[in-house]
C-alpha cells in the first residue's frame, strides 16, 4: 500500500503572485490529508518556515514535485526558479502567472520606469515628496543592503527555466490539483513533457450550458452591469464580451456559471501560438457591420481591447510586451 512507498517530497513556491494559488492548494480542504499521507511538504513559504538557504542546501533532484506559482518579476523570483529547477524532478508552472504571465504580466504594457513613477510618485495614497525610488543596492552604516532588483519585463516561468508541466488557472481548480497529484502517486503514465495538465483539451463553450446559436452579429459590446443578462443565452450573443470561445476549459465554467463572462485565465488550447490574437479573431468574427465606421463603433465599445485579449497571457504571447 501507499504507506509502504517512500513519501514524495513536495514544494510550493510563489513568484510574482497574489497568493491565490497558494490558497488554492489549501482549498483542497480535507484532501490535504490525503496528499500529506503520500507526501511531505518540504518548502512552502506561505505555510512553512523554511529558508531559501535550506532549499539551496537540499541535494539536486531531491524534491519530487515543485508547484511554482506566480510570474517572474524580479531577481529573487528568477533565482528561486533556477534553484527549484535544480532541486526538483518535476517542475510545474502552477497557475496563470507562472504559465503565461497572468495579471502581473499586464505590467508589460508599461516599462519599469512607468511602473515606478506610478507607484513611487503618482499614487494617490503616497507621500513621497522627494520622489525616492527603491535602490537594489544601498550602503548604510550597518553595512551593505540589497533587495531583489525589479525587472522591466514580466516573464513566464518557462521563459526562465525548463518547465515540465503547466497547470493553468487563476487560480487553478483545487480538484484538478488533487487529481494530478493522485495520478503521480498512483504511478499513472505521466503526460508528455511540456503538456498543460489539470485542464480540458477543449475550450470553455464545450462545457458552458448557455444556449448558443449561429446568430452572433454583435453591433456593440456591453460591460456586464450595462445589460440584464437573461441567464440562458451565450454571453457574447448578448454583447457581453466572453473569452470562452478561445479559452481552455477545466475550471468548470466557473465564471459563466456565476453569470460573469470568462476572462481567459486558463489560456489557449494546445497548438495555439498566441492566445490574444486567437480570441481577437473569434470576437471580430462575431461582429456585424460592413462599413469601417460601423465596425469601429462596435470596437469602440470594447474597453481596452489589448488588455482584454491578453489579460492573462501577455508575457507568454508572441509580442511578449508593449513594443515602445
Amino acid at each position, binding site marked *: 500500500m501507499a504507506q509502504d512507498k517512500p513519501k514524495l517530497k513536495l514544494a510550493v513556491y510563489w513568484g510574482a503572485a497574489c497568493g491565490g494559488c497558494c490558497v488554492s492548494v489549501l482549498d483542497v480542504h480535507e484532501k490535504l490529508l490525503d496528499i500529506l499521507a503520500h507526501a511531505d511538504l518540504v518548502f512552502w513559504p506561505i505555510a512553512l518556515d523554511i529558508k531559501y538557504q535550506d532549499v539551496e542546501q537540499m541535494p539536486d533532484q531531491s524534491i519530487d514535485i515543485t508547484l511554482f506559482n506566480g510570474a517572474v518579476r524580479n531577481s529573487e523570483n528568477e533565482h528561486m526558479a533556477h534553484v527549484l529547477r535544480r532541486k526538483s524532478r518535476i517542475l510545474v508552472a502552477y497557475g496563470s502567472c507562472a504559465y503565461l504571465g497572468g495579471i502581473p504580466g499586464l505590467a508589460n504594457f508599461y516599462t519599469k520606469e512607468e511602473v515606478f513613477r506610478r507607484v513611487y510618485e503618482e499614487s494617490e495614497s503616497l507621500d513621497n515628496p522627494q520622489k525616492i525610488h527603491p535602490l537594489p543596492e544601498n550602503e548604510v552604516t550597518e553595512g551593505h543592503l540589497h533587495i531583489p532588483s525589479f525587472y522591466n519585463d514580466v516573464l513566464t516561468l518557462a521563459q526562465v527555466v525548463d518547465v515540465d508541466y503547466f497547470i493553468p488557472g487563476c487560480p487553478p481548480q483545487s480538484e484538478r490539483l488533487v487529481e494530478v497529484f493522485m495520478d503521480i502517486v498512483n504511478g499513472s503514465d505521466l503526460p508528455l513533457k511540456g503538456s498543460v495538465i489539470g485542464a480540458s483539451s477543449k*475550450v470553455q463553450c464545450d462545457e458552458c450550458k448557455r444556449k448558443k446559436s449561429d446568430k452572433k452579429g454583435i453591433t456593440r459590446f456591453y460591460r456586464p452591469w450595462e445589460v440584464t443578462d437573461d441567464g440562458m443565452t*451565450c454571453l457574447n450573443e448578448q454583447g457581453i464580451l466572453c473569452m470562452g470561445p478561445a479559452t481552455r476549459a477545466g475550471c468548470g465554467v466557473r465564471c459563466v456559471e456565476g453569470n460573469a463572462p470568462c476572462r481567459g485565465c486558463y489560456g489557449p*488550447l494546445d497548438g*495555439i501560438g498566441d492566445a490574444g490574437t486567437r480570441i481577437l479573431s473569434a470576437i471580430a468574427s462575431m461582429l456585424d457591420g460592413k462599413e469601417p465606421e460601423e465596425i469601429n463603433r462596435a470596437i469602440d465599445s470594447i474597453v481596452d481591447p489589448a488588455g482584454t485579449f491578453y489579460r492573462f497571457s501577455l508575457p507568454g504571447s508572441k509580442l511578449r510586451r508593449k513594443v515602445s
Partner: protein
Amino acid sequence: MPINDEARVGFYICHCGHNIANMVDVTSVAEYAAKLPNVVLSRDYKYMCSDPGQEMILKDAEVFKLNRIVVASCSPLLHENTFRNATAKAGINQFYFQMVNIRENASWVHEDKELATVKAKDLVRAAISRVVFHKALEKKKVPVNPDVLIVGGGISGISAALNIANAGKKVYLVEKDPTIGGYMAKFDKTFPTLDCAACILTPKMSAVLKHPGITLMSYSEVAAVEGYVGNYQVKVTRKPRYIIEEKCVGCFACIDACIFKEAKFSDEFNEGLSKRKPVYIPFPQATPQVVLIDDKTCIHFKTGKCPQSCAKACDRNAFDFDQKPVTQELEVGTILLCTGFQPFDAARAPYYGYGRYPNVYTSLEVERLVNASGPTGGNVVLRDKTRPKSIGIIHCVGSRDEKTNKWCSRVCCMYSLKLAHLLKEHTDAEIYNFYIDMRTPGKGYEEFYDKLLNEGVHFIRGRVAEVSDWAINEHEKGKLVIRAEDTLIGMVRRIPVDMVVLAVGIEPGKDAQDIRRVFNISCSNEGFFLERHPKLAPVETFTDGIFIAGACQGPKDIPDSVAQAGAAAAQALALIDSGFVELEPNTAFINEELCCGCQVCINLCPYHAITFDETKSVSHINEAICKGCGTCVAACGSGAITQNLFEDQQILSEIYGLLVE
C-alpha cells in the same frame, strides 16, 4: 520552428529564357537553395515548363528519392497545374509541391538585380520552409452537368449556342431583350464584304429557335447563380410580355387593332428614328416572333381604361394582362457570357453637337437610315426629309480620348468606311472622313480602305475640334461646320456639311458590373470582363466553368466575336466531354475532438457549408459545398478548423521562411 526530417526537397529555378534570368541571378539562388534544410537537390534550367524541364523532375525524383518539389518560376495561376502534374508523374503526391513566383512578383517588376535576387531567395526559402509541412491530398472529382447556359443573344451568343447544341448538348439561351439578334440585327451591310447583315444573321436566329437542343428564354435575365464548375444553379427571371409566348404566332393583328391608331412612341430598334405602338414587335424578323406590350406606354397599364382592342383582335387568346415576372431555376454545368457592349453615348462629347443639332447622327442611327428595312426604307434623308449633299464622318467619338474612353474601339474605322461607302452609294454626297489613325487590321480590311480611297471619299487626318452652326461665309450658311486640324497639310480646316455622322465607340454594357457580380467574375479597369489570361486563356475567366465571348470581353467586330464564341463553345464542350471536374482540395474541415460548438463559424460561411450537429454538439463542414476561402478557419477560437493547402502551420512556416535566414 518544428522540423520534418522526412522531407527531401528537390528545388528547381527557371530562367524563363531571359524573363527571369535577366533580373534574378538564378545560379546564385540555386546555390543558395542547395544549402537550405531539407533540400537534397537544387537546379536551374532554361525553361522548367518545357518537356525536358518536367522530365528532369521525374528523373531526379527517382534518383534522389525526392518527396517534395519546389519550382521557382512564373505565377502559380499560370503553371501550378503543370508542375503539380509533373510532381504526380514523378510518383509524388501532387500537393507535395510548392511554386514560387519570381517572374510576375520579382523579375518583371523590379529594376535592381541584386535586390530582386535577394527577394527571390527569400521567397524560395519560404516555399521550402512551407512545402516540408505539406500533406498528401487527393483532388475530388465531381461530374459535370452537360447542360450549358448562354447569356446574351447577340451574334456571339447565337454562334456559341448553335455550336454547342450541334454537339448534342442542351443549351439555355437567355436574352434580356424581347428578341435575339443583338446589334448585328440593326446593321445593313457588314464590312468588308458588304454582305447583308440580315441575310447572314436571320437564318441563324431561326436556327436557334428551331433547334431542339436550345431553349430560348427571351426577355429574361439571370437573377442569381450558385454552385461551382460543373454544377451551377441558376435563377432566370422572365419579364412579363403580357402575351402568352406559346400562343402568339406573330400575325400582328393586335398591333393594327391597338387603340393608338398612329404609332407614337420612340422605337428602340430604329434608334428612335421612328415610332411604335405600346403593343409591338421590335422588328419583322424578331425571334421569337412574339409581340409584347410596353407597360410604360400602354393605356391599360397607365389608366386601366382601355377597351383592350388588341386582346380582342387576337383570335388565339394570347393576351394576359396579369402576367408577373416569373423565376425559373436551371441546373447547368458551364456558363458562357456573351453580354455584349453598349455604344458610347454621343451626348458625352458635347463639342460634336449631338442632341443639339438635329443633323448630327450617331453611326448606329445611320445604320438604320441606310437599311432597306429601316425607318426611311433605306432612303437617306435628314430630319427635314432633304437629302444630304455633303456628309462628315467623325471617327473615334468617345474613343482614344483621355476625357472619355482611352481605348481604341477597333470597329469604328471599318464601319465608318462601310458607312462612307453606303452613304456615297445612297446619296452620292461628298463624304469626308475625319480620322486620327486609320486602323484596318483584318482580312480584306486594308483592301476595303483602298477601295474607298478610289471611290472619291475624302479623308482628313486629324481630330475634330467641334461641330457648330457658326457660319463665317455664305458657303457655310445653313450648314454644320466641322472644324478640324488637317495634320497632313498642317492647317485648321472648316468643312461645312449637311450631315454629321459620329462614329461612336464601344463601351462595356451598362449592366456589366451587375452581371459580373452575379457570376462572380472580374472586370478589367475599363469595365470589360476580365479573361483569365490575355493570350493563353482569352475566353476563360477566373471562375472555373464560366467563359466569355464577344464584345463583353473587349471591343470586337463580328468575325472576331464569332471566332471567340467558337473558342468559348469548344472550351465548354471540352469540359463537358471530360465528364467530370477536379476540385482543388483546399476545403476546410473541423476536428470534432476540438470543436466546442460555439457556432461562431456557421454564419461566416457564405455557402451554408457549416451546420451544427445538435446530438454531438459540434459543427460540421460539408466539404462538397465548401469552396475553400478559409474564413471560418481564422475565426475558430479552438483552432479546430483546418484548411487543406492553407494550414496554419504551412502559412506560419512561410512567414518564418520569408523573414528568417
